[in-house]
């Protein structure tokens, strides 16, 4: 069946880039079609009726016309603008990181409703909750699960023996965790018992349960380093916004678990 000439969808605007003098290409993440790119005509003009609704990190309701190469956005209405996320550089830096993850991991697909709900949920929490880094870590883990590239945390990736929390090494290039007996001579970085338990908990627990866990700064940085390594090895490239998160952190005293 041919594609309809006009279709309606909700979407999260992941990013924009300029097209010619007045237009922009919007990278959108939609629940039914996955990641798509569409042209926003005249978005760079001051009186554009669409521009304010299509800012990145906004949830929008769209009507698009099917184009030869790219679809064209004909109507847009912002549903959730996440104002606190846009006005606070700590929240914004994490929001951009989450958006870049989705942008890099996904492509045009038929049904990505679950990942779409995860993304909207992450943006809602980044807009209104505390514990920003934990929100991002949990989203990272859920994204890795969704994409089927989550680290193996139940058995050793080398000998298949059941893992206990103590003495393991994290080896994302091998796909998970090395037990104390196998870690010698194989690439991996030390994995603390607390980090091991937390990573395993994050694979199965809903965010509400994970948010109740008290995480000190050292543990937060450890799971961030581990998960970032998994993400980079899955993408085979760095996530650029990660550097921005670091730069924003450097502008203020080191954040604590309860920082915004």
């Amino acid at each position, binding site marked *: 069946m041919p594609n309809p000439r006009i279709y309606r969808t909700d979407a999260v605007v992941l990013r924009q880039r300029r097209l010619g003098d007045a237009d922009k290409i919007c990278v959108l993440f939609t629940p039914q079609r996955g990641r798509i790119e569409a042209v926003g005509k005249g978005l760079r003009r001051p009186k554009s009726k669409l521009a304010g609704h299509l800012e990145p990190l906004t949830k929008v309701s769209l009507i698009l016309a099917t184009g030869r190469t790219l679809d064209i956005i004909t109507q847009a209405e912002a549903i959730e603008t996440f104002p606190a996320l846009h006005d606070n550089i700590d929240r*914004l830096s994490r929001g951009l990181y989450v958006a*870049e993850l989705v942008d890099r991991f996904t492509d045009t697909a038929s049904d990505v409703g679950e990942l779409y709900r995860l993304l909207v949920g992450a943006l809602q929490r980044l807009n209104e909750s505390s514990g920003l880094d934990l929100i991002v870590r949990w989203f990272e883990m859920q994204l890795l699960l969704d994409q089927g590239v989550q680290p193996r945390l139940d058995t050793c990736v080398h000998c298949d023996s059941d893992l206990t929390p103590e003495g393991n090494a994290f080896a994302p290039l091998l796909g998970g965790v090395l037990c104390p007996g196998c870690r010698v001579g194989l690439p991996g970085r030390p994995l603390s018992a607390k980090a091991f338990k937390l990573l395993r*908990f994050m694979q199965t627990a809903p965010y509400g349960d994970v948010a109740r866990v008290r995480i000190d700064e050292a543990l937060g940085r450890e799971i961030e380093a581990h998960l970032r390594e998994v993400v980079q090895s899955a993408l085979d490239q760095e996530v650029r916004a990660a550097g921005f998160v670091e*730069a924003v952190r450097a502008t203020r005293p080191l954040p604590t678990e309860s920082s915004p």
Partner: protein
Amino acid sequence: MSGRAPVTAAPLARLIEAFHRLPGIGPKTAQRLAYHVLRAPRDEAEALAVALLEVKDRIQLCAICQNVTEQDPCTVCDDPTRDASTICVVEEPLDILAIERAGGFDGRYHVLHGSLSPMDGVGPEQLKIRELLQRLRSADVTEIILATNPNLEGEATATYLARVLNPIGVHVTRLAHGLPVGADVEYADERTLSRALQHRVSLTAAPAAADEPPEQPADPADAPPPDFD
């Protein structure tokens, strides 16, 4: 069929290719421009070539404000009648022209040469932020006006700069947000409208102070959790 000689003469093809590399110039426009140059009088083509080379040879960045200039310091930084205690921070040199056209600002400028765009790899290190901080150490500046664009990248740049500049003690302000002249309220997005309401101005005879924006609700405190063990 392979092996045929190209139809377009090599110098003309090179000129078409050069025009095609310019932003916003497609293949057809590049061909039209190249044939225009071909048909134009020699002195017109020479003037174009000289202008191109002069831009590369004689234009530099002002050591103070980082604007593009032929002389260093630029005419704005070298003008003693302009207020040196107020600096307007803009993304691009063209933004200075727009603000000068509007009139009403007699301070000086600082050009960042871009805005924060983390997903494109543009972070604080890629902008002229370090030069701004150095400038603040050596000059007696009392106010910084952040005139970055009211989009995600411009807002990120402004909030980042405010974070970096506040500890220095300089007064940091941001261009107001609101409805553009000639726009329809009906089509305004909710962020623009809410900011326009927050920053509304009084039209009563006695000038009243603008309302303070409502305080943001505090973040919900985390429930007292146990240690993770």
